[in-house]
Every structure is written in structure tokens, then in C-alpha cells.
């Protein structure tokens, strides 16, 4: 009993009571979003009927094969992007870091595009093919992060603008790459490629979802444990080192696990912008800047928002569907502008 209590003690160490309560509120919000997301859609379906044993109805088929995987995918991707955004904002000590803005998503998309166009030539429809895409996306996003890192090293806090510029360059490069691949692709490959720029959860199915969820959960747990160290990093790399943080190891971990979560997300749902940028800031505005709060807060709020955005995208213009990236950008873009003004004021 003592052990459990002290475990609990450690969990809320450096986390004010208030922040802990807020996290619980976020949890409830997520549960609510999940419930609403699964309950609404094109087909009328009552979630509670799932618990009856009749699996033959369209209702339960729609729920278990179509809607639940989709809502779960939206939640996991939202959580990934929120967490990656918060982690990158902490690592680069830059409030404008976002997997999309700094080219990380584009790198993942380029990797995926390469897998689609070139991979299908070499690997075809083999069993590997199913793993090739997410793997290529992860490698793509990792390369970009490492590039960003070495190009902005030593610029620290002064390099806010510089990092965005580097991100723009990388985005442009990835766009060119994808453009070239589009050019040389066959018609069916092209179909797959245009998917990347829009972003959608329509491709959710259990085969892809299960391994993706595992990868994301493992990466998320690793990132969540780095909260305190990311706080210390805000004092500067030298100072963090003096406080006992192995800065090299910290950088490596954040880079790798962010790349994995972004890579997996992009490979399953295309590029969805602004979530990684906006969610951590909303979390900070609500409850404070400590990473032990911001990281889990971004996971929970990111998932909730994405599930909601997906719900809107698939019910607003039934029977058609809006690309979910449209909705996240519609909310995210004005917020981004406001953020820039706020930084200018300081």
C-alpha cells in the first residue's frame, strides 16, 4: 500500500494539484469525445447495443469495422501530433515548432511517396509492402529532424526565425521531391500520392491500426517520461547539463520518438497541419508550461480535438466528406497568426 501511495507521490511531484486535476478533466473530455465520435456518423448506431451479443446487424458491423477503427485512428494521430509538437517545442525551445511547419510531416510524406512510387516497383504487393510505407515515413521524418538539428545547432533561443526558415526550405524540398515522384508515377500510384496532401482517416482498418497503436503507445510513454528533463533544458543546454541532464541522450530520444509518432501518423492519415502547433499552446494557456503537464495534456487534448475534427469532417456534408486537414487548418491558421503577434509583443 505504501508503495502504491509513494508511486502516486512521485507522479504528482513537480505537478501542482491544479494541473493534476486539469489532466483528469482532459481525460474525461477524451472519454466524452470517444463516446460522441463512436455514436455519431452517417449510419444511426447505438453504442450500447455493442454489448449485446448480436454481431450480425449492420449497426454493429459499422461500429466495429468502420467507425471504431476510424475514431481510434483519429485519437491516436491527434495524440501523436500533439505530443510531437509539444516535445519539439520543448526540445528546440521554440514556440513555433510544429511537425508540419518545420518540415517533419513533409519528410514523412516524402518517405511514404518514395515507398509508393519506387517501393511498389521493387516490393510489389508482398507482405513487406504493408510495413514498407510506415517505415519509409518514419525514416523520412527522422532525417528531417536530424537535419534541422544540425543546421540550427548553437542558435538556441535566438534561432526562432532561423528554424522556421530552415523548415520552409525543407518543406519546399520535400514538395519538390513529391512533385517529381508525382510526375514519374503511374496513374494508380498517383492516386495514392494525392492522398498525402489532404489528410483523412477514411483509410482506418484494424490491420494497419493495431501495429500503429503499439508503436505510438511505446513512443508516447518514452516521451512522457522526459517531461522534467525538457523543463531543465529550457535553462539552456549547459545549465541543463549542470543539473544532471544528459543533453545528447535527451535530444536523441526526443528526435527519435517524435519521428516515429509523426511518421506512423502521416503514413496512415496523410498530412494534417497545425495540430502539433496549436494544441500544446492551448494546454499551456489552460494550465501552465511545465512539461509534466503539457506533454500528457497535449496527448489528451490532441486526441479529443482530432476526434472532434474527424466527426465534423464526416458528418458536415453527408454523404460526402471534408478532408480533416481543412478543418484543423481553418482553426489552426488564425491561431497561428495570433501566436506570432503575441510573440512580437514580447
Amino acid at each position: 500500500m505504501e508503495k502504491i501511495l509513494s508511486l502516486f507521490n512521485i507522479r504528482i511531484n513537480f505537478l501542482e494539484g491544479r494541473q493534476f486535476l486539469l489532466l483528469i478533466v482532459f481525460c474525461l473530455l477524451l472519454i466524452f469525445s470517444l463516446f460522441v465520435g463512436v455514436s455519431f456518423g452517417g449510419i444511426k448506431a447505438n453504442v450500447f447495443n455493442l454489448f449485446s451479443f448480436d454481431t450480425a446487424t449492420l449497426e454493429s458491423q459499422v461500429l466495429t469495422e468502420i467507425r471504431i477503427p476510424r475514431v481510434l485512428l483519429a485519437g491516436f494521430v491527434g495524440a501523436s501530433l500533439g505530443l510531437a509538437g509539444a516535445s519539439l517545442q520543448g526540445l528546440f525551445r521554440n514556440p513555433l515548432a510544429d511537425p508540419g511547419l518545420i518540415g517533419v510531416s513533409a519528410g514523412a510524406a516524402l518517405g511514404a511517396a518514395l515507398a509508393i512510387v519506387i517501393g511498389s516497383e521493387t516490393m510489389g504487393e508482398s507482405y513487406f509492402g504493408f510495413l514498407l510505407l510506415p517505415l519509409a515515413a518514419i525514416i523520412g521524418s527522422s532525417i528531417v529532424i536530424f537535419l534541422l538539428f544540425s543546421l540550427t545547432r548553437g542558435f538556441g533561443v535566438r534561432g526562432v526565425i532561423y528554424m522556421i526558415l530552415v523548415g520552409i526550405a525543407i518543406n519546399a524540398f520535400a514538395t519538390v521531391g513529391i512533385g517529381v515522384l508525382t510526375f514519374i508515377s503511374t496513374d494508380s500510384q498517383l492516386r495514392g500520392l494525392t492522398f498525402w496532401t489532404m489528410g483523412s482517416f477514411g483509410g482506418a482498418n484494424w490491420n494497419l491500426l493495431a501495429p500503429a497503436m503499439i508503436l505510438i503507445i511505446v513512443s508516447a510513454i518514452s516521451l512522457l517520461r522526459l517531461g522534467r528533463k525538457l523543463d531543465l533544458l529550457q535553462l539552456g543546454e549547459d545549465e541543463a547539463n549542470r543539473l544532471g541532464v544528459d543533453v545528447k541522450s535527451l535530444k536523441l530520444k526526443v528526435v527519435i520518438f517524435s519521428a516515429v509518432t509523426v511518421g506512423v501518423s502521416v503514413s496512415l492519415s496523410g498530412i494534417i497541419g497545425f495540430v502539433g502547433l496549436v494544441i500544446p499552446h492551448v494546454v499551456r494557456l489552460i494550465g501552465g508550461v511545465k512539461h509534466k503537464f503539457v506533454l500528457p495534456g497535449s496527448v489528451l487534448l490532441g486526441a479529443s480535438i482530432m476526434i472532434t475534427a474527424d466527426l465534423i469532417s464526416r458528418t458536415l456534408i453527408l454523404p460526402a466528406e471534408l478532408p480533416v486537414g481543412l478543418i484543423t487548418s481553418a482553426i489552426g491558421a488564425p491561431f497561428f497568426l495570433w501566436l506570432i503577434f503575441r510573440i512580437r509583443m514580447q
Partner: protein
Amino acid sequence: MAHPLRLLVTILLLTSTPTKANVVCETASNTEKVVVAGGSLTEIMYFLGLQQKIVALDVTSSYPKEAKKLPSIGYVRALSTEGVLSLDPTLVIGENDMGPENVVEQIKRTNIDLRIIPETHSAEGIKSKVLCLGTIFDLNDKTKKKVNDELIPLIDDLEEIQKKNEKLKKRILLILSMQGTSPVVAGLGTAGDGFIKMTGASNVITEFEGWKPVSPESLILSNPDYILITSRGMRSFKSIDELVKQPALSLTNAAKNRNVIDINGMAMLGFGPRGILTALEVARRIYGKDS
């Protein structure tokens, strides 16, 4: 909205054995509520007088004009599973550009009657599509009559023109749109390529497949006799005069002789019944009033 009882009748366990291999043009058991994903298929539905059965269609279904009033399932390559299912369709017809893959799979797995009508980008292909739909909707007699009365004469005319001009084949460049100053043109295997062949002409582009932008130099080398351009592509210019002055096109025979024809994109590339008429009109213009 979905009626539970009817759904129970038409839906089986997802984990059951895979759907029977439907021969695509087999008569459908229930054609009361049809979702159409493909402009040419919608055109054919109206052609055969079947339009009341349509519950929803995709955004490429823009002809005839009345079709635009029906509910839209969105872009044919970005469909929504639940969106389609929410219409409670008894039959879904589409072409092979229906997507994304996952959505098509999911619809198939609910055992809804889904037919992918084959496309060959030719006049014969159009005829087959019409006949296929005729069989699906169990309208064989009426369909055959319409085909014989309205389509076959046009196809015959086209064949005549083709035969007459075997040796003097005109060379056509088909422009989809402008990408900056480079025109995006029909390569091999595209609907545009098929349309050009339908008119009895030959495609000036033989080096690549698909829709791609081309450089001015390569256009001068290929030197088309005629330029076909979609109406949407034509909107990039104020007039034909402006088009023929484009650096990419100005030195071609077509530009020098102002041999530019602008046509509605779907009419040219949709490969519905009016496609044959359109091809005939173009053939007559190209080869003069010989036929």
C-alpha cells in the same frame, strides 16, 4: 436514413465467406436506390431514363444539368464509407477510379451490390457501358433500341471518316489545362488519348503516358495540326488569339492556322453517350466537310 429491418435483410456477417464474384453486368436484384460514382455513368442513367433511381452521385456527374441538384457523395477518389452507407443504397455503380481503396473494400464487405463498370476509352467502350447498364437494370430491349437508334449511326459515321482519312491522319494535341506557361497534355493511355483516337486522328504525343506538362521545344518538334483544349483550360486565355500567341504553342501548325477547338472537358473525356457525338463533331471539323 437507414431502416433497420431492410438492412437486416440485405446485410450479412462481415466474417462470412467472401462475396460471390459478381459478373459485372449481371442483372441486379434490387435497383431501387442507386449511388452513382462517375460522370459517364450518370449520363447513361439519364440516357436510359433511369434518373429517378439515383439517390446520390459524385462531383464529376455534371451532365445533364439536372443531375447537379442531387445529393453529392463528393470526389470519386475520396469517398466516405459511412457517407455512402447512410444513403441505404441497394446498388452502387462506379468506375475503376473509385477510392480510396479502403472505402471500396469496406463497402464491398457489407455485401452491398457494387459494380465497377469497365472503361476502355473508345466508342465501342461507350456502347458496352450502355449495354452493361441496360442489363444491370433489366432494360435490355429498350436499351438495345436506343443504342441502335442513337449511338450506332454515330459510331458508323465515325468509322467512315476514319476509313476515308486513313492516309491523311491529322495530328492532334489535347490540352487539359495550363500549368503556368506549360500546357498539361494527354499522353498515351489517357482518356484524352482515347478521345483523339475516337475522332480518327493520331495523338501528337507518343513518348510518355499520363497527363503531363510539356515544354515549348518539344511541342514545336511534334507540331500538331490541331489543338483540342478543354473549356476549363481555355479559361486561362481571353481568346483564341491569346492562346495561339503562347510561346509554347505559337510556332505550331495548329497555332499558325488558328486550328484550335475548345470543348467541354467532361464531354470529351467522360466517355458517356455524348462523347460519341462530340467525337463526330470534332472529326467533321478536322477533316472538312467530306463526310
